[in-house]
Structures are given as C-alpha cells and as structure tokens.
C-alpha cells in the first residue's frame, strides 16, 4: 500500500464520512427533541436521490403521489379538528401546505417535464417534493404517540422505515440510479486524483453543519428546539408546543436526508433500499456521540467513513461487519463511563 492508495481511500472515507456526519447530526437532533430513534432517516437519502434521478430521466416520480396522499390525510385529520374547535383562521394555511402545494406540483409535473431544466432547479424541486414528508410523517406516525416510551417510538420508526422502503420499491423499481456529477472538475493531489464532486460533498456538508450551528445558536426557533430537548415542561410553559418542535425537527431531518441523497447520488449507485445502510452508519456515529453530543457524533461519523474506506481495501468482504462492530467497544465504554439515569415517564 503506497501513499497514493492511502490518499485515495482517505478521500473516499472523508466523503462518505461527511454524509454520515450529516445523518448523525439529524439523528441526534431528532432523538434529543422527540426521543424518536429516527430509523427512516436513510429513506430520505434514497428518496432524494431517486426523485432527482426520476426527474432527470423525464419520469414522474412516485414521491409526488405519496406527498399528495400524506398531505391529504394530514389535512383531513387536522382540518376536522380545527372545524370542531372553531379555529377557522388556521384552515387556509393547513390546506395550502398539505393539499394545495402537492396538487400544484403533481399538476405541473404532468404538464412539464423538468428533464432539461438546469440542475439547481431540479434539486430545488426534489427538495420541495420530499422534505414536506418529514413533518407530515411526524404528524401521522409520531404525534399521536408523542408521550409514549422510547421503545414504542422505536417500533413506530421501524414501521415507518419498512413502509417507506416498500413504497420506494413501488415508485422507483429495483434498479439503482446514479445521477450525473455536478461538476467534471478534478485535479491531482500528491499523485491521487481528487474529484470535484468529492470536494463538493465535503464543502456542502461543512456549510450545512455551519448553517445548523447558526440556526441553533442564533435564532429563537433553534433555541426553542434546544430548549425542548433540555426541558420539555419548561419549553411548554414558554408556549413551545412539542408538536411544533417535533415537526420542525423532522423537517430538518428530512432536509438533511434529501440533501445528502442529492450529494452522493453522483458518486454511489442508490437503490430503493440503499438509504437504510447509509442511515445506519450515521447511526453508529450518533451512538459514538451517545445520541447527545453533536460534535462527537459528527467526528464519530467521519471515523466510520474512514474505517469503512480502509477496511474495504484490506478486508472488503467484512467491511460492513467491521463498521458495525465499532458499536460494541463504544457501547462498553459508554456503559462503563456514564451514570445511568432513569427515564422520567
């Protein structure tokens, strides 16, 4: 093994690690605020990549129909409640967001095909189609059980995950896709070729992490999410509803997932079920951070990426095993060093 291979693998590891870091941050965030272990995180990666690929291939992505179905269900449930309580003022925004916009997207996409649109518009459209599913899924799957135990929420997560995978197969078929690279730019670094797409992934992930940092440190909504994670009763007394925090959280998680999917679609072939494994590696990173520390989770995720890259060179048959075995020493170390605190119910 020479320096060139070492660099090449390192490059690979950091690229994947950056994506895992984004997903790890999303997982920590969702868990801290809602106590949900968000297994479907990876599905948003796959949905993002596959929706973009469908749009580019001139096909109507099935996610449009899913968005419409989810939105209509939310509108019916919440609309009925608003009517019953006489809160008519809140009806128009509910209907516009959950039914109006998805209908508009579905209608527009049956008329125009965005296959020849510029990439930025295709990306934007993909985000508009998939991200709103985050808060909708929160409303339908998690909100009715918001006060349930972590275990029950985990079971709900598994159900959502399995459903999304099944629908993914239905919408996109079993074939994998790889979208064209955002940029053909590349140069050599110490004899190893460095792809523009790789740099793009790392830079975009770093920018997103910085953006999240500012959101949580500088904006009142970001602080409200942190407050909910720290003290739910205190947050409610400030008028921060847990449902708002949950929806906001899942919007962010979905956005991070879709963004990650779009970023890696040009470097990895994505299948309808690829998201699970990607999300799981983010989860290993999140576990290293104890599902609590954002910086440790991000660093842990990059470690996962590097470990995966180097083990794929030395023992490629065992690369997944090696990555997931990392959890065992981490859990041992965690259970020996952390004081166990009973969960308040």
């Amino acid at each position: 093994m020479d320096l060139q291979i070492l660099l090449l693998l390192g490059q690979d590891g950091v690229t994947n690690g950056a994506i895992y870091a984004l997903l790890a941050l999303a997982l920590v965030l969702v868990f801290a605020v809602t106590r949900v272990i968000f297994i479907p995180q990876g599905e948003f990666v796959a949905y993002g990549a596959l929706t973009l690929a469908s749009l580019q291939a001139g096909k109507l992505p099935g996610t449009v129909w899913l968005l419409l179905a989810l939105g209509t269900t939310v509108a019916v449930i919440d609309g009925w409640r608003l009517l019953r309580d006489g809160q008519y003022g809140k009806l128009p925004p509910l209907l516009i967001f959950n039914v109006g916009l998805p209908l508009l997207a579905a209608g527009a996409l049956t008329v125009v095909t965005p296959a020849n649109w510029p990439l930025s518009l295709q990306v934007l459209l993909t985000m508009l189609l998939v991200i709103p599913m985050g808060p909708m899924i929160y409303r339908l799957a998690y909100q009715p059980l918001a006060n349930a135990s972590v275990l029950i929420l985990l079971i709900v997560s598994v159900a959502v995950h399995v459903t999304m995978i099944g629908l993914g197969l239905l919408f996109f078929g079993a074939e994998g896709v790889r979208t064209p690279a955002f940029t053909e730019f590349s140069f050599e670094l110490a004899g190893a070729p460095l792809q523009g797409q790789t740099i793009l992934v790392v830079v975009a992930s770093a920018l997103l992490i910085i953006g999240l940092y500012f959101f949580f440190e500088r904006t009142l909504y970001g602080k409200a999410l942190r407050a909910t994670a720290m003290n739910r009763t205190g947050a409610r007394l400030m008028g921060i509803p847990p449902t708002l925090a949950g929806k906001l959280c899942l919007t962010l998680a979905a956005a991070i997932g879709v963004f990650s999917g779009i970023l890696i679609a040009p470097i990895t072939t994505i299948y309808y079920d690829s998201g699970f494994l990607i999300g799981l590696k983010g989860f290993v990173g999140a576990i290293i951070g104890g599902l609590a520390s954002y910086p440790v989770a991000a660093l842990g995720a990059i470690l996962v990426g590097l470990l995966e890259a180097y083990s794929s060179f030395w023992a490629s048959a065992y690369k997944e095993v090696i990555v997931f075995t990392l959890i065992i020493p981490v859990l041992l170390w965690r259970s020996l060093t952390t004081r166990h605190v009973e969960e308040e119910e």
Partner: protein
Amino acid sequence: MNSMNINHLHDHEIILEARHLRVAYAKVEALHGVSVSIRRGEIVTVIGPNGAGKTTLLGALMGLLPASGDFIYLGKPQTGEREVERLVRLGMTLVPEKRELFAEMSVEDNLLLGAFDRYRSGHRDHLETLDEVFELFPRLAERRAQVAGTLSGGERQMLAMGRALMAKPKLLMLDEPSLGLAPLIIKEIFRIIGELKKTGVAILLVEQNARAALQISDYGYVLETGEITLEGPSSELATDQRVIEAYLGLGHKH
C-alpha cells in the same frame, strides 16, 4: 384599541375564575371542587400545608394536569382542550416550583425563550421587554452570559420569574417562589412581587411562607387536603385565629 376599551371599562375585572375544580391522579382525587378567582392588578395567595394540593391547583389552572370544572378567563368560558400552549398565548404563565429552567443555556437565552410565543405570533418587542426585565432584576443583567445551571438559588428564582415576565402575561402564577431561599433573598423576591403588582398583572401566589404571602396579597385562600377551608381578604385572614394557629405559628406564644 379594543383591549384598551375593555381595560378602561372594567378596572377590576376578573382575569381568571375557576369553579368546582377537580383533579384526580389515577383514582385518588387531589382537588375536590375548588373555586378561586383572581382580578386584574390583584395578588391572590393560596396558603396551606404540604400536600394540600397547592401545586396541583396551579398545574390544573395552567393546563399541565387534566382537570374538570369551569374556567372563565377574561370573561369568556374556556371550552375545548386546555392545552398549555393555548393558555400561554392567552396570557397565562406559570413559574413552577422546580423553576424548569433551560440549565445549559445562558441567562439571556432563557429570558429570550420566555418571549417565544409572542415572537411566534408576530411581536418583535422582545429586546425592549428584555431591558425591562433586566431593570427589574439587575442581577440577571450582570449574569446575562452565565449558564443558567450555575446560578444560585435566588438567581434561579429571579430568572424563572423574569422568563415568565418576558411573555408579558396577564396572569402570573408563582409556585413557592421562596422555597429553599435565604431570608434576605426571600425579602427581595417578595419586594419584586409587590412591584409587579403595580404593572397591573394579576398574580396568583402559592406559598408555604404564609406570613409573607398574606402581608403582600389582597385576598387569600386556605387550601387543606384538596378543599378551600377558608377565604377572605388577606388582612382578615392574617388575624383569623385558625390561620394564626395553623400557619403563622403564634398559637403558643401566649
């Protein structure tokens, strides 16, 4: 404009009236038909022994606990689910016994979050309110960058009160503000409660420190084992023989 007219017409309007309030934990009833009312610009206190249901009463009024009974707020009966967030929007706020601060955040962030609901509903006056709160609690201004979890007991209580005031409440409910504090700090806290009264906010004060509570308040209720056993103007309660014996601790002096 509208609200100004109302203020003008009913100077001593009732802010909150709760009638026949019942709260049950599982099958054990903790409050058996309690009725209280609080007027604008008035301090009402609820005194009583440990375990009488004082904290339960505040929890029920604030929507933290499921309760049955009639609630009339600002002249209108409250129907539907009494969710905490809805009541916060209507101008009710609670400083709980446990303070429930955001321990890992700075004093300033804790205060700003107190204005979250006003911010969310489109008000952008949180920075002015912050200055007003700092004026009331200069100690908090000195420690604005300090993490809330590292404050002393008195400062934590001040922060909890300041955070509640950031919401510009119409009704401020205080649960045992003197709990666990040194006598000098208690004096300071009660002085501030007295000052708050001048701003027109209605205050419902739950206290074990009956002497201080009756001194500062206009009206008082005595809550014992989930029932109001006595009520009246605070000055009268303070001279009532039963109150003196049970809560003011002068019964054996002569």
